[in-house]
Every structure is written in structure tokens, then in C-alpha cells.
């Protein structure tokens, strides 16, 4: 049974239909990437999975349970946590407070458990430990991305949704973020990743889906798609 199972999902904004019935699955433990051009519907898919955009048709199942109609804030309790496109760092809160927002709904059995979660985030992003009391709005783009990912990890997600974590970052930092994404996945967290950086993302993913104007046009193993000529041409900038 897949951890996440989307069947024939249609999502629109007003009269405009952004997704025309897509189906995709993510197995527990997988790192699955969604790639596609601007406006293909990647963010819309992520929003629908998190529940902040309603479906007009289709179903979403998570861990065997139909969550199509479940309220967004309750999905966090189920283990679906997203680091959204544009990072969504709370600008008026410190790094520490932002991280604490990540575990807003999580109940820690002991104070030590909380501390261990926090320490783990600081291990992945030592920069955040240095900047604990800095206000989110004054952090650099890369630092904000670290906050966004770290914050999502505070919830100990079953499914981590990452929407373009490399957007707007310098190549060095992109490398670092990708390495950490792989690391989080290797530790056992299932990840659905949206990326423009197809080369990097595909080479690290178990599987990938290619989205074009609201439809899945191709799916397969990450390495397999990397070698696919039409993918190379369209998404990897190779003729």
C-alpha cells in the first residue's frame, strides 16, 4: 500500500482548471520528484496534498485513509508536512520560534525528546543554531530555506513535501540543500520533492513524475528519466 495515493485529481482556481486529473503514488521511504515547466501545476499538487486547495474531482489517500476532505491543519497531525514554495518563514518570529511553529501540533513525551529533535535540526543546519535569535525576515534566502526545511522536520513528518527548496539559491547552497534532502530521506522520511533543478533532483530520486500543463506526461525511475532523450531535451537543457 503506497503512503500517498492520488487518483484522478482535478484542482482549479475559480474557473481555471490547473490539474486535469493526475494520478501519482509515493511509497513509504521513497524520494519522489515532480518536475515540470513553470505553471505546470506542481505547486498546485502540493497545495492539494496539504489541503489548502480543494479538489474538484478525484481522491487523495494517505496511509490507507481517504483524506480528500480532511481539513488542512489536521493533515499535519497525520504526518503530512510541507515546506512551501517561497519558504513561508514567519518574518516577525525568530529562528527558534519558527522552528517551534514546526512542532505546533506535535506532543513530545519528554522535554528530552523535543531537545533531541531540535538538536537534530541544528546538526543538519549548524547555521540555524548560530542564528537562533535572529528574526526570520532578516535571514538570507538560503538561511530561510534552511529554516523552512528545519521547521518541517520539527514535526517529524511521515511525508515531507518540499516545493522548490533550491529556488533562488547559489550553486554551493543548492548542493548543500540537495545533500541534506538525500540525508533526510536516507534516515527514513518519505519525501515528495518539486524541483526545477532536474539534473540534481532526478539523480537523487527513486522515481519521478513529469508534469506538463496539468497532466502527468511521463513517469519512471530517476536515473531512467535522466537518460530519456525527450526529458533531456525539455528539462535538462541538452539537445
Amino acid at each position, binding site marked *: 500500500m503506497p503512503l500517498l495515493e492520488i487518483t484522478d485529481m482535478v484542482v482549479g482556481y475559480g474557473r481555471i482548471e490547473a490539474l486535469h486529473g493526475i494520478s501519482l503514488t509515493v511509497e513509504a521511504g521513497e524520494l519522489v520528484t515532480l518536475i515540470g515547466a513553470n505553471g505546470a501545476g506542481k505547486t498546485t499538487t502540493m497545495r492539494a496534498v496539504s489541503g489548502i486547495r480543494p479538489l474538484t474531482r478525484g481522491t487523495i489517500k494517505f496511509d490507507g485513509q481517504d483524506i480528500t476532505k480532511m481539513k*488542512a*491543519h489536521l493533515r499535519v497531525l497525520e504526518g503530512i508536512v510541507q515546506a512551501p514554495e517561497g519558504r513561508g518563514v*514567519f*518574518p*516577525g*518570529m525568530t529562528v527558534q520560534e519558527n522552528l517551534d511553529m*514546526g512542532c*505546533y501540533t506535535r506532543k513530545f513525551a519528554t522535554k528530552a525528546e523535543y531537545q533531541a529533535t531540535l538538536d537534530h535540526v541544528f546538526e543538519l543546519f549548524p547555521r540555524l543554531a548560530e542564528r537562533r535569535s535572529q528574526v526570520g525576515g532578516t535571514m538570507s534566502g538560503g538561511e530561510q530555506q534552511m529554516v523552512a526545511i528545519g521547521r518541517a522536520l520539527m514535526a517529524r513528518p511521515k511525508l515531507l513535501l518540499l516545493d522548490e527548496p533550491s529556488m533562488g539559491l547559489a550553486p554551493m547552497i543548492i548542493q548543500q540543500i540537495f545533500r541534506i534532502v538525500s540525508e533526510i530521506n536516507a534516515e527514513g522520511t518519505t519525501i515528495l520533492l518539486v524541483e526545477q533543478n532536474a539534473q540534481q533532483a532526478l539523480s537523487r530520486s527513486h522515481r519521478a513524475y513529469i508534469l506538463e500543463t496539468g497532466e502527468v506526461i511521463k513517469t519512471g525511475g530517476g536515473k531512467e528519466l535522466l537518460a530519456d532523450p525527450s526529458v533531456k531535451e525539455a528539462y535538462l537543457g541538452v539537445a
Partner: protein
Amino acid sequence: MTGPWAASVFALADSDINFNISALGHSFWQLTIDGLAYGAIYALVAVGYTLVYGVLRLINFAHSEVFMLGMFGQYAALMILGFSPSGNAYAEGAVMTIVFLGIAMIVGMAVSGGVAVGLERVAYRPLRKRNAPSLVFLITAIGASFVLQEFVHFILPKLTGGKLGGVNAQQPIRLVESKQQFTIFGGSVTNITLIIVISALILAFAADVFINRTKFGRGIRAVAQDPTTATLMGVSREKVIMLTFLIGGVLAGAAALLYTLRIPNGIIYSGGFILGIKAFCAAVLGGIGNLRGALLGGLLLGVLENYGQIVFGSGWRDVVSFVVLILVLMVRPTGILGETLGRARA
């Protein structure tokens, strides 16, 4: 600037406005002390405007009626406890006075908190469900303000056999006889001033700790700064909105009791209106959406307005508030402390 038009305008102003700086000098400390007491009340009411604005970007015009109903709530509680309006103050010793003050304040807080949450449920939530444009919210707020006033004006007296509400002001129940306790630079500090300032300080401090140091406060700030991301963190926006109205209402209810200690002429259905506008000014003055701004704005407005009425004449008290507001906004359009609770959104 001559001619009949100018003459008539100046004649109008002439008869009323003074410019008496020496009076300000004479009673500076007394004016400051009394101004702070008024300002503390503005501050508590202003919190309700500022928090609701922070999470909903809505000016809840009916907040002044939430305050007004708090006054009636504590009044009703005292009547049930056997008090009746009279010229004499209650005089059974300090302990019992404090007990009754406490009961009246808690009932006022409960009534105002309940009304605020109820108002949110009945008037605003259905609009949110329908994605109504913000203008519709604003008009609804103004409508709700009238409805609540008219409820006390016409319906409450019918429900209570004429004991509460109605067209005339309710004679005050005097719990505390004003007595000087000590002086600061010649300015007299009465027991009533002390009760107001100390209660307001405790409540303001509690609100500040709640918003800035607790998990639920963090949830409120998260919704104010970025509602969508707050939802992604598992925050229920609806619960936060309810909580926000509750806090604002409870503080307004406490302010309602403090206010009745100061006013000599009793309470009336329209009695929240001017105070509400002042508190709203205070919130804007301090930076709407900003909790500490509302507290600071309230105190500042109370004091400046008290200076102003001495310098320009008592009829100009309200005008001073608005002039101060306009002057500050010309220099700092986001208010003194700016919009920190919701800095993220335009």
C-alpha cells in the same frame, strides 16, 4: 483672511478655543496621572482592535459595543448581588470592596468575551465561509455595532422589566469612594486611579506574555504573519480567530469595569461609542496590529488628550486625540511602533 466668511469662522472658534499653557504648567502632574488612568482604559480596549486587525485585517467597529455590554454585564452582576444605584459609595471595608470589584470585573470580562466570540460566530464567520470582500466585513461590523446598541436601547429593558438598558443612562453603582492615597509632585493619586492603573498593568502584562511567550500566542502571530503557512504548520485559523476575539473581548470587559469607576453619570447604550473610537485611534497611533503599540498608544493618547483639554479648553478634548493621530500618521504612517504582529502582509 478678511471678509464676512473668515469673520464668522473665527468668531465660531474664538468663543471656545483657549491657549492656556500656564494652566498646563500648574497642574502638569495631576493631568499626567489622570491621563494615565484614562489611557490605561483606552489601552485595554485598543488591544481588541489591534489583535483582530492583526489576524483578519478587519476593523471590528462593533468592539465599542463589546465594551459597552461589559459595562452592563458588571452592572447587572452587582444588581444581582444586591447593590442598587445610590449616591453613597459602598462602605463595608476594603476587603469586601475588592471582592465585589473582582466579581464585577470577572462578570464584565465574561460578558464582553462572550459577546465578542458570539459576534464573530454570527456576523463574521459566515462571511469568511463565503469569501466576502473586505468592504462587506466592514459594513457588517458597523451594522453589528448598531444592532448591539439598539439591543440595549430597546430589547434589554423589555427582558429585564425595565431594570437594565433603555433610553436613559443607568445611575451608577458606586463601589469605591474616591480618596487620595498619596501625591506625586503635588499631583493627587486616588484609590480609583491606583485600581485602574494596577489592574491595567497586570492585564496588559498578561496579554503580552500570552501573545509573545506561549504556544497559542505564537499561533496567533503565525496567522497574522502568514495565514497559509500557519495552516501548513497545523494551526487552525478558525480557532485562532476565536481566541483573538476572546482576548480582545475579555480585556474590553475588564476595561468596562475600570471605566465605570471613573464616570460619574452612569452607563448608557451609546456609552461605548466615543471611547471605542478613541481606543481605535490609540491602536492606530501605536501601530495597528501591534500589541505593544496599542498599549503605548492608549497611554499616550490618554495623557496628551488630558493636556490638550487644559490648554485648549475642555470641549477640545476629543479633537486633540484626532489631531495627535493625524500628526503622528503624517510622520509615521504605520504608527509609532509599526505593524509587527502582521509585518508579513500588506
